[in-house]
Structure formats: structure tokens, C-alpha cells
């Protein structure tokens, strides 16, 4: 048996302690299904999971670093649950350093909570450590004190089996965190939100699932102004189902950076909205070439979280000869249509957002010098079916243009067109560049 006891860094009996213990237990359930809340600590038995998490040392290291972010003061390891708890309270991390009996005997007797009701009596008997209690005659102890004392001692020493009420994994994830201080800036919420994200990712790992959307809600504290309202919320969506803490917290912090809080915040809640089973990549026996870094999807998501989704785009091509409508741009996160069109005529590689009207000299258009027409005209006409509402009046986007490939000595190969205007007039426009 390989038990860990996780002790929170708060004094026991605090009102929010129970919530935090449940949250910690939810996070711990990703390591093992055998997680129990004992007194004011979370105990978990991980012997069967050691290989999966890379061995004792790796698991201990992970529990220590992630636990510290969740508010765990100390994680102690021992062969029994009560033993681990006793070590944790005595501030000893490794209960395996010496034989269990020897290690426990040295601890002060207050480390077991069953001792508390009998502490004055035991103290008058001259007991200071657990070893002192064990040296008392067993029959006398069982007659003089209640049976819980001996029972708990035996369970701590591993003489008697212990019975636990295992924590169950909730069906949905919703975790609350009361902040110990008022937060006035949205970025500073990340400190608390990261703790909740760790819990959520633990929950997702235990359910073998990933999330594509989660909501962070915050409640304004009681000293708020009347106009501020009760609180606010922020939903973060990801392109693919994931439970990568690093990615989710980067996304959240990008989103929080753009959020403004109306009033100081005292409490946070995190809810996993969209959850789906996630297929994991199995670990390989051989050291494969692992691609370092994020996937493109993740990094684009992060960039679009900062710049805005409309500024990270992919092209979608349509069957239209008019250049303005030959393609449009969709946010990169959205799914693209499967079919693509292919119009196989010469086309420029850059287009101007708006055609640029060119000056004309000697009936020749000018753009950084006189243009030399090379090939054309290439007539593009159509669009009478394309009706748009333009300031109340209906208009069609019909075009009738003669496109030419033109060469400028300074600006390269250009795609210009001539269009008839009203009054038999014609004008030249620059529309694209063959770069």
C-alpha cells in the first residue's frame, strides 16, 4: 500500500475548507479511484498507479508541484492512510524513511485526532508520543478509553485494516473558490482560476475526457456598487477537445486580459460546459521522435484569443470569376467546407481590398510609371444575380470589366482592368499583383 495524505494550508474548521477538500479530492481522483477524505485531509492510495505515472519519484514530484498550486501545504507518504496523515501533521514528508512503527513512535500524540478527547488524561499519564501510548498496557487502555483510540492506533500502524468511504467522481464539473482577497483586475483572477483549471483537468483525466468549452464565473464581493451587478462570466471555447492545463490556462489568460471587471471579485466558479470522451495517445516503448511544442491548432487559438477570431483566417474558395467574390475568409477555428472549386485561369497572387483607380496619360494607365499592357483583354462579366441591400436600396453587384496583364517597371506584373463608367467614359483600375 502506498498512501499519500494531502494537508491543506488552511487551519481546519474554516467554512470553505469542505469545498476545497472536495475540489482536491476531485483532482486526486485522476491518479487513483481510491481517494478518501479523512478528517481535514485527502488521502489516496496510489500503489496500483505508480507505473502509469512514471514511478514513485515522478508521481511524488507531480503531486508536490501541482498540489502546491491547489493549496496543499504538505503531501506525506506512508504505508497506511492514518499513518500518512500523522506524518503530514507532524510535517514529515517521507514515511518510508524508516520502518513504519519506528517512525510513528516518535511522533507527538496529537497527530491522531482520536487522541484529542483523551489528551489531558494521557498527558497526566506521562504520554507525549504515540510510542508512549502504545507502551501502556493494552487491556487497560481499552478499558479506560473508548475503543476508537486503540482502533485508530492499530489502523495507523497497519495492524488492523481500515475502512474508507471512497470519494466519487461527480458527473459534471463545477468548482467554486472563495478568494482570500479582493481582486480588482481581471488578469489577477488567473491565480485563482488556475487552481480551478487544475481541478477541472484532474476531473477530465479521471473521466478520460476532454473539454471544448468551459465557463469562468465570478461574483462581485458585497462592497460593490449597485450598478455593477452580481458578477460576470466568461466562456472560453477551444477548437479541439483537450485537457492540457497549460493550453487552457494560456487561453483563459488571453481572454481575461481583454476583460474588465466592474467591481472587485471575491469568488470564482469554474464549470466545464462541453465534455466529450478523449482518446489518448498511448505511450510508446521506443523513444519516438516527439514533436516539441504546441500544435498549430493550439497556437492559432491562442493568437486569435488575443487578436480576435476574425484576424486569424483561412481562405474558402467559391465558384465565382469576380475577384472580390472568388474567395472569402473564415476564422481559422471554424470547419472548412470539404469541396473546393478550381478556376484555372491566370490570377494574381495579391489583390487589393478595393480596386485602385489609376491616373491616365496619353490613354495609358499609370502606376509607378507608364504601364505596358501584355495580355488581354480578359473579359469578366456577371453578377446580375448578386443582389445586396445597400442603404435601403437594392443594388446588384454586377461587374463588366476587361482585365489586362500589365507590366510596370517598378511595381512588377499587375492585373488591371478597364471599366465603362457612365457617359461613355472609361476608367482604369489596379486590382491585383502577380507577385
Amino acid at each position, binding site marked *: 500500500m502506498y498512501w499519500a495524505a494531502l494537508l491543506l494550508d488552511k487551519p481546519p474548521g474554516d467554512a470553505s475548507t469542505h469545498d476545497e477538500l472536495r475540489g482536491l479530492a476531485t483532482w486526486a481522483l485522476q491518479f487513483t479511484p481510491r481517494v478518501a477524505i479523512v478528517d481535514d485531509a485527502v488521502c489516496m492510495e496510489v500503489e496500483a498507479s505508480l507505473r502509469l505515472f512514471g514511478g514513485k519519484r515522478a508521481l511524488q514530484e507531480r503531486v508536490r508541484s501541482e498540489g502546491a498550486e491547489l493549496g496543499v501545504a504538505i503531501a506525506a507518504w506512508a504505508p497506511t492512510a492514518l499513518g500518512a496523515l500523522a506524518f503530514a501533521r507532524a510535517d514529515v514528508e517521507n514515511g518510508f524513511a524508516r520502518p513504519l512503527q519506528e517512525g510513528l513512535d516518535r511522533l507527538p500524540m496529537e497527530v491522531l485526532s482520536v487522541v484529542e478527547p483523551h489528551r489531558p488524561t494521557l498527558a497526566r499519564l506521562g504520554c507525549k508520543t504515540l510510542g508512549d501510548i502504545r507502551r501502556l498496557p493494552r487491556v487497560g487502555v481499552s478499558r479506560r478509553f473508548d475503543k476508537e483510540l486503540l482502533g485508530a492506533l492499530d489502523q495507523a500502524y497497519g495492524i488492523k485494516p481500515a475502512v474508507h468511504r471512497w470519494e466519487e467522481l461527480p458527473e459534471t464539473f463545477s468548482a467554486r473558490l472563495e478568494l482570500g482577497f479582493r481582486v480588482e483586475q481581471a488578469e489577477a483572477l488567473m491565480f485563482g482560476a488556475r487552481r480551478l483549471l487544475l481541478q477541472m483537468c484532474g476531473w477530465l483525466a479521471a473521466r478520460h475526457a476532454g473539454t471544448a468549452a468551459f465557463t469562468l464565473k465570478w461574483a462581485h464581493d458585497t462592497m460593490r456598487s449597485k450598478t455593477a451587478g452580481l458578477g460576470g462570466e466568461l466562456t472560453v471555447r477551444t477548437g479541439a477537445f483537450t485537457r492540457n492545463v497549460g493550453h487552457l490556462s494560456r487561453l483563459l489568460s488571453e481572454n481575461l486580459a481583454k476583460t474588465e471587471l466592474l467591481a472587485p471579485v471575491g469568488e470564482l466558479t469554474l464549470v466545464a460546459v462541453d465534455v466529450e470522451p478523449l482518446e489518448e495517445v498511448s505511450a510508446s516503448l521506443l523513444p519516438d521522435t516527439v*514533436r*516539441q*511544442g*504546441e*500544435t*498549430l491548432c*493550439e*497556437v*492559432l487559438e*491562442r*493568437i486569435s484569443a*488575443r*487578436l480576435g477570431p*476574425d*484576424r*486569424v*483566417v*483561412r*481562405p*474558402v*474558395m467559391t465558384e465565382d*470569376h469576380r475577384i472580390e467574390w*472568388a*474567395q472569402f*475568409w473564415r476564422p*481559422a477555428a471554424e470547419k472548412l467546407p470539404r469541396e*473546393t472549386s478550381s478556376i*484555372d*485561369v*491566370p*490570377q*494574381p*497572387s*495579391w*489583390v*487589393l481590398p478595393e480596386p485602385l483607380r489609376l491616373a491616365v496619360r496619353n*490613354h495609358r494607365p499609370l502606376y509607378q510609371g*507608364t504601364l*505596358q*499592357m*501584355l*495580355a*488581354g*483583354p*480578359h*473579359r*469578366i462579366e*456577371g453578377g446580375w444575380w448578386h443582389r445586396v441591400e445597400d442603404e435601403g436600396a437594392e443594388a446588384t453587384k454586377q461587374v463588366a470589366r476587361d482585365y*489586362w*496583364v500589365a*507590366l510596370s*517597371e*517598378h*511595381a*512588377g*506584373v499587375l492585373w488591371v482592368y478597364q471599366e465603362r463608367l457612365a457617359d461613355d467614359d472609361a476608367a482604369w483600375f489596379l486590382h*491585383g*499583383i*502577380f*507577385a
Partner: protein
Amino acid sequence: MQASLPLWPVAPPPAPPVVKQPLADDSALPALPPRVEAAIWRATELGTPVTEVVATGWEQLDSELPGGGWPCRSVTEVLQAQPSLCEWRLMGPALRKLVAAGQTIVVVGPPKRPHLPGLRHAGLDDKHFVWVQADTPAERLWVTEQLVKSNACGALLSWLPQARQEQLRRLQVCAQACEGPVILFRPIAAQHEASAAPLRVTATFGLDWELNVHILKRKGPRHEGVLHLPSIPGGLEAVLTPRLMTPSRLIANRERADVLGSATPRQAARRRVHA
């Protein structure tokens, strides 16, 4: 002792004293094993980078670049007299290979709107193309750095007209972990500034369907002269007549004549496509 237990394989009978011969005379040297030969760098040769490269598509250019192509895991600067002049003509053949391998091309802050129907002629594909519209210099740098660090895109093309020396050095350090080529397009004025990019080229277009590339900086000796690389953009080769293959002559004629209508559009080759 040494005679009975030779530590090294017995040397062949006294080889001709190589040292005494003039080193410049290559033919006098005994041929080295190919592996040794490959590992030796002579000062007259181009430096060979340790990383992989993407071939540029022109043998002429490949032979001048260390490693024979655009380097991966490093930053390459392309300097142009004005933006949107010949980016795709220069990079197209290399990008075609990357796209064919299923890699995504990401462009950051291009000067104009990329037009995919035209870019398809350069081998790009709408499925493997992402446009990040970063406008301010700070945004461009941030996006470029994030993409370089993530090592997720097949090739990164970024327009950084205002990047400073130390910012480029930072990108170059990050790029050592990036498996694809990182191409930065910058104005020609930047050629006078120092840069951390190991490869810097200037590119302009020639009137007669060619690109003029000069390598400003590379690992190896100075590059003299200009490379003239044939290049016809955007599927135009289908519509060019032999006369149009040398537009410089047309322009010269026009200037000589300087008469109205001497080379009117009417004379140019026609090809109509009705929409």
C-alpha cells in the same frame, strides 16, 4: 613493445610525403574516402549548415545557398524594394513542396490580401493556408515569435518592415527550435543594418520574366553578381506569346517610338474567358 602490440592498424609503407607538396595542388593529394571528404570544409567552399533545407526550385540558386536551399531552423531575410513585389514568385517552388507534404503555410501581416486562386498556381492550397492579420509592429513580432516557438507550421512567412536588430536576434534564437523555414520580408533599406539572420537575400524582378536575386549574407564567401532566375507568375505561361516573353523590348520600342498607339492593347495576344 610497440612493434609487438601495434595500437593502430599498421600504416601502409611510407606514403608520399604529402606535407611537402604544395597544398594548392589538389590533384597531388591522394583521394580521401568519401566520408572524410564530406566532413572537410575548405575555405573556398560554401559553409554547410547542420540543419536540413528546403530546395528553392532553381538549381542555380540552390548551388549558391549553403546546404542547397532555404534553411530550416533559422531565419532568412528577403529584402525587397517595395512590399508585394515578388514574394510568391521567389518562395512558391519551395512552398509547393511543403504543401505537397501536408504542411501548413502561415503568413503574418502581408502587405495586401493574399488571393488563393492565384496562389494555387504557386502550389499553395486553401486547405493549408492561414493568414494572421497582425497590423502593428508589436503584434507582428508577437505572432511571429509565438508561431516560431510553437514549431507547428510548415513554413512561416512574416512581413516585418520595422523589426529592430535585437528583435531579429531573438527570433533567430527561437527559430533554432523550429523545423520549418522562417522567412522575413523586409525593405531593402535594411541591408545596411546588421542582422542576426544567417541568410539574407535581396530580390527584385527582371522585366523579362525573371527574378534577380543577390545573396547579401551567407555562410561562406561573398556572393558576387546577381542570379537571374526564370520565373513566370500566376499561370501566365499559358497566355504568353513568344513576343511577350521579352517585355523589355516592347517597352524599349514604345519609348523609342513614343508615339500614341504604337503598342496598343489591340496588338497584344488575346484570350477571352467569359464569366
